[in-house]
């Protein structure tokens, strides 16, 4: 009964991987001067190491993932703490807060594009009339980058809030009461009591969010299309741009392999960090 699952995931999971590995060692551009596959060993990979566009794209992707995930975890934690208080309508507000999670990434991109396009969007209009600031994400690379981060925060902070809320709710009450009796202030309680106890939840959340942030494509595609220049051309978009408009299949395959490898390494490092923490708690 497992056979169909294994067959489908084998055909659509392992075969593409082996195939892309095979193509990566060839020079192949079907619409180029020489349309045949030519074996060229590690040539593609050698080219990749010195490809400034690729390296820039990695740097931008890491910067994007860092800013987005970092802000989301801090904001999400604060919001989760706010949800810990008792107040009427809490479930209702939580539902509204969760809403962005279900919106298709491509729709999120459209929404933010409509909000920020000069002369249509409300954001450039307000910035102009209140602060006299001209927002044009088609020209301003820094603002385009910042907006992709803000968009990601809007879309994914609820996820962090919910995972951390679940962790906070499940904490025992005694350590907090004890700390209060001992005269700890809020900051000390947070640093010495709450943080150590929810660290596994935070790491798990960072793990999920980081994986997602590194493969963000749809929203950014819609909002900026990778521009202006290459300021928001994150890895997913970068691969697409090499492979499809340029039809450089051999080089695109090599890039895909390296990106997959980098993602796996990061995954693995975080996973080790997660497990190591758990192991530490078990030993004493």
């Amino acid at each position: 009964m497992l056979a169909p699952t294994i067959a489908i995931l084998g055909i659509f999971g392992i075969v593409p991987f082996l195939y892309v590995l095979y193509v990566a060692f060839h020079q192949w551009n079907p619409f180029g001067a020489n349309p045949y596959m030519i074996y060229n060993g590690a040539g593609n990979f050698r080219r990749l190491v010195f490809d400034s566009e690729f390296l820039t794209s990695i740097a931008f992707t890491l910067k994007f993932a860092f800013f987005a995930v970092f802000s989301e975890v801090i904001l999400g934690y604060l919001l989760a703490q706010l949800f810990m208080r008792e107040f009427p309508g809490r479930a209702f507000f939580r539902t509204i807060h969760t809403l962005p999670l279900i919106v298709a990434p491509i729709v999120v991109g459209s929404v933010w594009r409509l909000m920020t396009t000069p002369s249509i969007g409300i954001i450039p209009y307000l910035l102009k009339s209140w602060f006299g600031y001209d927002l044009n994400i088609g020209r301003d690379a820094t603002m385009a980058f910042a907006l992709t981060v803000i968009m990601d925060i809007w879309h994914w902070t609820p996820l962090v809030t919910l995972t951390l809320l679940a962790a906070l709710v499940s904490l025992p009450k005694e350590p907090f009461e004890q700390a209060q009796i001992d005269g700890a202030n809020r900051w000390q309680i947070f640093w010495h009591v709450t943080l150590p106890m929810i660290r596994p939840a935070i790491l798990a959340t960072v793990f999920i969010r980081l994986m997602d942030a590194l493969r963000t494509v749809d929203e950014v595609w819609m909002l900026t299309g990778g521009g202006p220049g290459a300021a928001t051309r994150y890895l997913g978009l970068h691969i697409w741009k090499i492979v499809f408009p340029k039809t450089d299949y051999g080089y695109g395959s090599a890039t895909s392999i390296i990106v997959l490898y980098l993602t796996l390494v990061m995954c693995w490092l975080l996973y080790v960090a997660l497990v190591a923490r758990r192991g530490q708690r078990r030993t004493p």
Partner: protein
Amino acid sequence: MRANRPVYSILLWTFLSLLTLFPIYWLFVISVKPAVELFTTPSVLLETVYWKNYVKVLGDDTLRRYMFNSIVISTGNATLVTILAFMACYALSRFDLAGKENIFFWTITNRMAPAAVFLLPFFLLFTQVFVIGEWKLYDTRTGMILLYCTFNLPFAIWTLRPTIDGIPKELDEAATVDGATTWQVIREVIFPLARPGLAVTLILTWVFAWNEFLLAATLTSFNARTITTGLSEYVTTTGTEWGAMASIAIITLLPALLIFSVVQRHIVAGLTFGAVKE
């Protein structure tokens, strides 16, 4: 310390909810404005509601085709995935298979890989390898239904497994003693008990398939294009028709929104990929 000033909490959350909802509201505002009004002073309030954008979009044969494709692909994929995951979870839960935890972990890793990495191999396989005579897997609904299994099937197995594991084995054994075949056990014992879990899995995988964009954009050209791809096409080819684009976005958003309002709690557990145990 807690529960002292609920008024502040309510005010703060009202403000935060407005921040959350405003972008979606803005999408709606743009979708019900005629093109001439768009470039005047942006206004948050609606004076008139202009439905022509929707009439135009829904009357467009190409877009209707895309919507139909999206419905067929999402429904086909969600059904297939749920059936396969049900079978796989049953096997993982009831049979003593060698290395089954490894198999389980391997299925999950299929979801971890960035989709962009697999764009090229899928494209090449679909256009050059999975070809029978004139027929290619490229740009077919069948192709998309099978392809979406790569991310939906691991997810479905992940969400369904606790449900199936939670059904006591004694029930199977009792039914077997009474002379039921394996098939009867599955149909009469396991299936009715697993139904809520199956429904959630079906709904969530449906939404994921509906929302998918990158693979659809790369692996279809016209016949099997989905609505998310249609939405992106509207920007690149006819970038000035903001109203129409906004109304397609609203239409793309609606099914997920409706489903969300029904099974909100389960969606949360699903999206966090098992990190939240509610």
